[in-house]
């Protein structure tokens, strides 16, 4: 019937076409799923992908695009470095939570002081917290050979428990009428991460995401480190001969992706979220994995993929309000998208030939 012939290199056409194909296939199958559940598939797809940008309520939803895309892109940039090298940090969600807690801790310790250094110090603390949480699986892998996949993932659950503990214990707002959750940082000006341009949705997290994209591009395509990362991913043995030290690469990739995830968490807690609550984690750390793959681990692709994923979040909320679509349908969409992406990827790696 058919046989697969490995390609020597992935053609650019298919590299660009497969994510687009995957999105289209997800829309079709997702639409069919909605139809099977008794919703109008066309209305659902339009509400998710079109209305947030151009629909009647787009004035409200458009700024949300940057609010949601910022953390996704920031985290995905870090993950892409590791994924390229075959280092699997799938615990970004935990690093995100710990970054937020560390950043918020600085603000809450400084409260009610009014000083210019508070926000910069929070940024440092957030990055350091995420970095430290990411270094745990890195060191355990380097020292003992423990799987970074499982350790980083376990630490997500630990981080969630830490957040819950903080919200009920050490960080509980003393003026919060005994409700769990920290003070709201949006109301504490020196620590707040407000919208920079009114109505744009852009806050410091978005700025950081753009910087991270530029830095990722530079490192991956212009710096020897990018060469090391790519070689280690494609041919680990060859990489050793090229002078790559795998331990350093593991520490670097997990540390950097942890720090970026921590930053994303800090900008979130000081901005849109405002406070540490029991359920602070919002799944950005996991969705960013999809963003990294959908963007083919390339900065430009990550930018587009981040915006698209942000769109599905906003569109999903809109569809929940307008059409009563279940809230979790976005998660299903995202999972399905990753399936299709991985499936269609065969077109970039193999040539399909008719068997003689």
């Amino acid at each position, binding site marked *: 019937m058919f046989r697969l012939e490995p390609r020597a290199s992935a053609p650019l056409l298919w590299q660009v076409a497969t994510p687009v194909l995957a999105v289209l296939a997800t829309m079709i199958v997702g639409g069919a799923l909605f139809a099977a559940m008794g919703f109008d598939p066309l209305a659902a797809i339009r509400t998710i992908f079109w209305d947030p940008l151009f629909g009647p309520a787009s004035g409200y939803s458009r700024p949300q695009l940057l609010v949601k895309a910022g953390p996704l892109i920031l985290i995905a940039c870090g993950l892409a470095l590791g994924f390229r090298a075959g280092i699997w940090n799938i615990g970004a969600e935990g690093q995100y939570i710990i970054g937020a807690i560390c950043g918020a801790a600085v603000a809450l310790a400084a409260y009610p002081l009014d000083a210019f250094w508070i926000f910069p110090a929070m940024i440092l603390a957030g990055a350091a917290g995420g970095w430290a949480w990411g270094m745990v699986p890195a060191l355990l892998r380097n020292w003992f*050979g423990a799987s970074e996949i*499982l350790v980083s993932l376990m630490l997500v659950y630990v981080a969630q428990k830490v957040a819950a503990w903080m919200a*009920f214990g050490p960080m509980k707002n003393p003026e919060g009428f005994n409700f769990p959750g920290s003070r709201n940082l949006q109301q504490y000006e020196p620590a707040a991460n407000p919208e920079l341009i009114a109505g744009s949705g852009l806050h410091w997290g978005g700025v950081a995401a753009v910087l991270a994209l530029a830095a990722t591009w530079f490192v991956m395509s212009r710096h020897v480190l990018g060469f090391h990362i790519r070689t280690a991913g494609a041919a680990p043995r060859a990489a050793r001969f090229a002078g790559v030290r795998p331990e350093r690469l593991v520490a670097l990739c997990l540390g950097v992706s942890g720090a970026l995830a921590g930053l994303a968490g800090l900008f979130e807690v000081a901005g849109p979220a405002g406070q540490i609550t029991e359920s602070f984690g919002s799944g950005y750390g996991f969705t960013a994995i*999809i963003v990294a793959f959908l963007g083919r681990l390339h900065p430009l692709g990550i930018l587009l993929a981040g915006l698209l994923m942000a769109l599905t979040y906003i569109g999903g909320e809109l569809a929940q309000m307008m059409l009563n679509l279940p809230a*979790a349908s976005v*998660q299903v969409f995202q*999972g399905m998208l990753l399936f299709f992406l*991985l499936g269609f990827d065969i077109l970039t790696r193999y040539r399909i030939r008719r068997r003689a």
Partner: protein
Amino acid sequence: MMIDPLSVFILLLGAATPILFAALGELVVERAGVLNLGVEGMMIGGALAGFAAAHASGSPALGFVAAAVAGAALSMIFAVLTQFLLSNQVATGLALTLFGLGLTAMFGKPYEGVKAPPMLAGPLRLNLMIWLGLALVPAVWWFLMRSRPGLILRAVGENHDAAHALGYPVRALRMAAIGFGGALAGMGGAYISIATVLQWTEGMTAGAGWIALAIVVFAQWNPWGVLAGAWLFGGVTVLQLRLQAAGVAVPVQLLSMAPYLATIAVLVLISARQKFGRSGGAAAPGSLGRPFHALR
């Protein structure tokens, strides 16, 4: 505080059962050379499907059958993608977990706040699923180590190219192993919803699938090791719950970290033993996680 050791052991067996099922299934999958990180997704799928079927029919037995079917069905997405479309196993497994969590969150809403039917009682105050889990350990061991298909399965896992050259159906065997792993993961998940928590809540497996994956490493791909790992995990869980109930002066949230921290500790210990130990211990199957593409 007096604790009756027998009742603690019974609690431990119950807490260990979901992990035991899922880890035994994943063990067979990994012995066939496939790394399926979607255990969590298949468990939560089984937890919902099993609960829904048990609730609708009033029969927990039917629930576990439905859970096995649901877990196997979910695993087939992974199987087709990794075996026919040669996708990356790590990424595909992750996708399965994300998909399973989303799908169950979507379809689980109507079952929130509904109670499970009474569990299947068995001899010695243990339900039938606990007995089935215990029986599966020697059964899987016998299959892998003493039967001919088990030998072929292990050969496929150690070196798929050599197995293929000998004429063994690498892909078909792996599909079967993945399906078996999915069915067991689904049943393990259903144990949580039907027999432990007695209701459905979103994301209720809470990392049990990932713990099962770690237990397989801990067990060094040996069924008896899986039993030990599951009991260890069950022991930590029961201890943690007992301490919570006894009202020790440690916040509940910190106590409930125990299973996850214990998993990391166990993973580190066993990895260190493999790295530094004189005997070395058993290594992972040779072809684990590598895609198989027969050129001829």
